Structure formats: C-alpha cells, structure tokens
C-alpha cells in the first residue's frame, strides 16, 4: 500500500521507517479491537459457564416439581417460583402485547408524524426509566395501604414490557408494503379492517417475535417485583394473583443474599433455569426477527 503525499520527501514510499511505524500502529489497533471483541464474548461465556457449572449439580427433576424445602433442610425445588413467574409474566404479556401493538398501529397507521414522533419519544424514555422506579411507582399506587400482590407485580412488569413490544411492533408494521394497504383501500375496505385483515396478519411473525423479546426481558426482571411481589406468606404453589406470588428472580435474589452455601447452590440452579430460558428466547426471537425483516423488505 503506497503512502503517497502523506510521506515527507526523502523517505521511501514503502518499507521506510515511517511507513513501518504506521503499519505497526495499525496492527496494534487491529489487534486491540479483535481482543476487545474476544473479551466481550469471553465475559458472556464466563458468566454462562459459571452458571452451568454451579447450577447443574443441584438441578434434577425434583427441582422443577417440588416446593422449597423448609428452612435449613436440603433438597426441595422451585416449583412455586416457576408457577408464580409464569403467571406474572403471562399477565404482564397479556396486558402489554395488545396495548403495545395498538400503540404501534396508532403511530404507524393513524397518527400524524408529529404525534407519532412524540409517542416514539415517550416510549424510548419509558424504556429508560429505571425498573426499580417503576417498581416503587406501582408500590405507591397499588401496594401502599393494601398489600403486595401478583396483580401489582404484573402491572409493573407490563410497564417494563410495553416499550419493548411497542417499539418492535412499530418497526415491523412500518415495513408492511403500502401497496397491500392500497389494494385494501381500492376494494373499499375501511382503515380498521385493513389493519386487522391485512397489516397485522402480514406482520404477525414480527409481532410475535417482539412479544417473545418482551417476555425474555421481563422474565428476568427483579427490580419491579421487589416492592410488589417479594414477601410471600407461604411457600406453597400460589395461583391467585391477589396475593404476593413467589417468582424466580426474587427467589434468586434472596437466596444470593443468604450466607448459607446450600442457598447459593439453589440460587445457581434457579439461575441456570432462568438464564437458559431467557437466552434461548432471545436467540430464537432475534433469528425470527431477522427473517421477518428480510421477508418484508425483500432484502
């Protein structure tokens, strides 16, 4: 590679000391950048491998099906937390997905550009609200003067999930070809029918992956639950959201704060269940997301 006019007169174009220095600096930077990428992937591997190594020994079928052992005794499982988490995340998703998709429908189909921009801004800012603040917001709204409940926790999680679902729905709805919608208009369909019969079905795959990403994000959220569903009256399986529900993130949190090694072993096993669930969902959703985007944009 020649260095041309950048070179002071008198030195050789290639292979001179200055050129060698420039090439060396370049090599150094390239090596540093590669190293940084390796480092980031290594950290991910380190965390996942730690969870695997420390979580696997305590993991067996009973861990999924049994209720927690009484304090200080070995064995037991997290069946109650699994059920609780499933219900909380299910409720949160049942709230945030319809609302999120409707928000996206509004901004992409009905709202003017300024209103749509304002809502987009609000969603991004909402996404940046610390989840612990969302937790204390719901605590003040639904728990103070009342008691912790699955409902409160589900609403808090829904607020966290809403911007994720809405943003990804906006992205896919905006990709639905205009020609399809115009075909609907030409047939005399009303806007809402076009949305329900053409736009949403065309984007269905993308909408589902957005919901899955939302579930993946919210399944691991602890902060919104600390103030809303963390103090359980009994350790059995609870299916009623009108009381605090045991759940996996808070269980890991309180076990991790315990000084007992046996509790740490349980925390790791629960962490393994959670991390596998979350990472699997994230990877699958991402793959699908990419496919939907390619299909809709034709790229």
């Amino acid at each position, binding site marked *: 590679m020649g260095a041309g006019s950048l070179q002071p007169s008198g030195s050789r174009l290639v292979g001179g000391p200055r050129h060698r220095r420039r090439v060396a600096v370049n090599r150094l930077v390239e090596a540093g950048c590669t190293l940084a990428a390796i480092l980031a992937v290594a950290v*991910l591997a380190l965390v996942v491998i730690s969870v695997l190594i420390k979580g696997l020994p305590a993991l067996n079928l009973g861990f999924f099906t049994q209720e927690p052992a009484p304090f200080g005794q070995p064995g037991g499982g997290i069946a109650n937390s699994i059920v609780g988490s499933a219900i909380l995340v299910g409720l949160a998703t049942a709230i945030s997905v319809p609302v999120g998709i409707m928000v996206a*429908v509004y901004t992409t189909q*009905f709202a003017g550009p300024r209103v749509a921009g304002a*809502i987009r801004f609000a969603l991004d800012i909402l996404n940046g609200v610390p989840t612990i603040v969302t937790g204390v917001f719901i605590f003040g709204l639904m728990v103070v003067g009342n008691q912790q409940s699955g409902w409160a926790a589900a609403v808090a999680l829904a607020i966290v999930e809403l911007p994720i679902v809405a943003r990804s729905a906006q992205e896919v709805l905006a990709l639905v070809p205009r020609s399809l919608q115009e075909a609907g208009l030409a047939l005399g369909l009303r806007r809402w029918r076009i949305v329900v019969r053409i736009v949403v079905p065309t984007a269905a795959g993308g909408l589902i992956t957005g919901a899955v990403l939302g579930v993946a994000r919210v*399944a691991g959220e602890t902060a919104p639950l600390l103030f809303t569903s963390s103090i359980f009256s009994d350790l059995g399986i609870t299916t009623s959201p009108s009381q605090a529900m045991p759940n996996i993130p808070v269980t890991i949190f309180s076990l991790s*704060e315990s000084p007992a090694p046996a509790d740490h072993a349980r925390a790791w096993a629960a962490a393994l269940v959670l991390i596998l669930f979350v990472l699997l969902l994230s990877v699958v959703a991402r793959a699908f997301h990419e496919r939907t985007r390619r299909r809709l944009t034709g790229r």
Partner: protein
Amino acid sequence: MSTPAEIQFAPRRLSESHVKLVDRIGEPLFRALAAAAGVASVGILVWIAESVFNQAGLAISHFGLAFLGHNTWNPVTNDFGAASFIYGTVVSSLIALLIATPTAIAIAIYLTELAPRRVRRPIAILVELLAAIPSVILGLWGIIVLGPFLGNHLEPFLSGVLGWIPLFAGTPSPYGMLNAALILTIMALPIVTSVTREVFQTTPGDLKEGAYALGATRWEMLRMTVLPVARPGIVGAVILGLGRALGEAIAVTQVIGNATQISSSLFAPAGTLAAQIASEYQSANPGLGTSSLMYLAAILLVISLLANAVAWRIVRRFNIMGRR
C-alpha cells in the same frame, strides 16, 4: 387528506346502502382504542413522574434540597440524606463507562471493519446477549465469582502497585465500588457497542475509499473518516449506556455492600440511589422513611430521564433507533 383517503370515497358511496354495522361501530371504536393506547404510553410516563414526586412530597418538604448534600440514612432517628448515594451512582457509572466506552468502540471497529463477514452477525448477537443476562444473575455471579477474585487477587495487586493513589488504597474486599463498577461495565457494554456499531455503519463508503486512496492504513482511515463522522453518535451511545448504568438496582445492591459512606477508595463498600431503594424493600413502610425512598427514586428518575432525552436527541440524527 392524502390520496388513499380519497380513493376510499367512491367504493363507500357504492355500498352505502349496506355499510355494515360492524364497520360503522368498528372504525371509530378501533381508532379510539388505538389513540387511547398511544395516549396511555405518554400518560404512564407522566403518571410515574407525578406519582413518585407526590409520594416524595413529605420528604421533600421535610428535608428540602439539603437532602441532596446530606450524608445519612438512619431510619431510627428518621434522618435521611442522599449525598453518598448520588456520589456512588455517579462514580460507579462513570468508572463503568470509562472502561466500557473504549472497549465498545474497539468492538464496533472489529465488527464493522475487521471481522470476516461470516462471523460479524454471530459475534454482534453474542455481544448483545450480554444485555439479555438477567441482572440478578449477573449480581449472583458478582457476589460468588467476581467478588472473591477481586478481594483476593485483583485488589491486593492494584493496591500494591498503585496504592499511592487514594482510589486504590484501602482494604481489599469482595464487595464494594469496584465490583459494582465492573458489573455495570458488563451491562453498559452491549448497549454502547450496538449503538456505536450502527453509527459506524452510517459512514459513507466513498469517504472511506477516499482515505484508502490517499494511502491511509485502516487505523488512519478510521481516524480520518469514521470516527469524526461518528463522534456525536458515540457520545449518544455513551449517554445511553450511562442511563442504563445509573438505573441498575439489583445487581448493584448485590455487590456494592450498601454502605452510607463516601470513600475515596474503590475497594470500600458504597451505595447508589437505585441500590439503596432496592435494599430497603423489606423495611419500606408508610412515613418519612418510605417518602425519603421515593425522594431517592425521584432524583434517580430525573437523572435518567435527562440522560435518555439527551441521548435520544443525539442518536436520533443517525436514524438508527431501530431496535431499542
């Protein structure tokens, strides 16, 4: 109105006689529902702010702005102040971003310029998966894996070599500011990386080719074209990462030691706004204590809203706010 609305007219007239009841009710109802959802997403943001400030009211009127500079947290004497938590929030996040920013830029360079095409997407996804690890698991890892390593190896080494700097003086400990800062680094890194990478991809190709044509090495090309073009975007990415780090409660409360103190040593236990709120979850009861907790939440909310709004303004110009 635009053309599609006019196209709509003719067929509607044709079938006016049997405009279906579902359409007469459905159309306005559906529009109203969609608009309501849109308004709700803005409203919830306002509601959160209003409610948090409202519940902080008691503490705000009791302590005033002196709360910000007062360093105590004593539920027994009902004496509360946020100074140490504000300090801890700022310092832990700054250290995290100090480490995460150059690393993220380097990874973004690797992903856009160096990596073989086939591994680009997989590596980008792996880096983004770091952000998918639930914070409570990262915190658990911070307590049991990272903490002992810091307390037994890294911190003694640092204090041996750099102990003359107050930051690295003090007793090594598994819990403290350094542990929290490193965990926050891991959390901020994927966000900063992915935004930076997308900003890098907006650099016009002919600029890069121009630099190569002048004989620039790859690094010189980056310094001459990509980095200057991307600089504001990188700033936006860093502020987004900062917003993420400032607001993290769970992982930080697990590893920082939750102390109400301002120490120059990075090894010492500390506290942050978010972590303090999280650590008080069991003792929260009505009164000045809870109201002071809400005051902390209000401060945290204001800081992170500011950070996110600024970042949004900057990053929006690059037209890449796709996935977040």
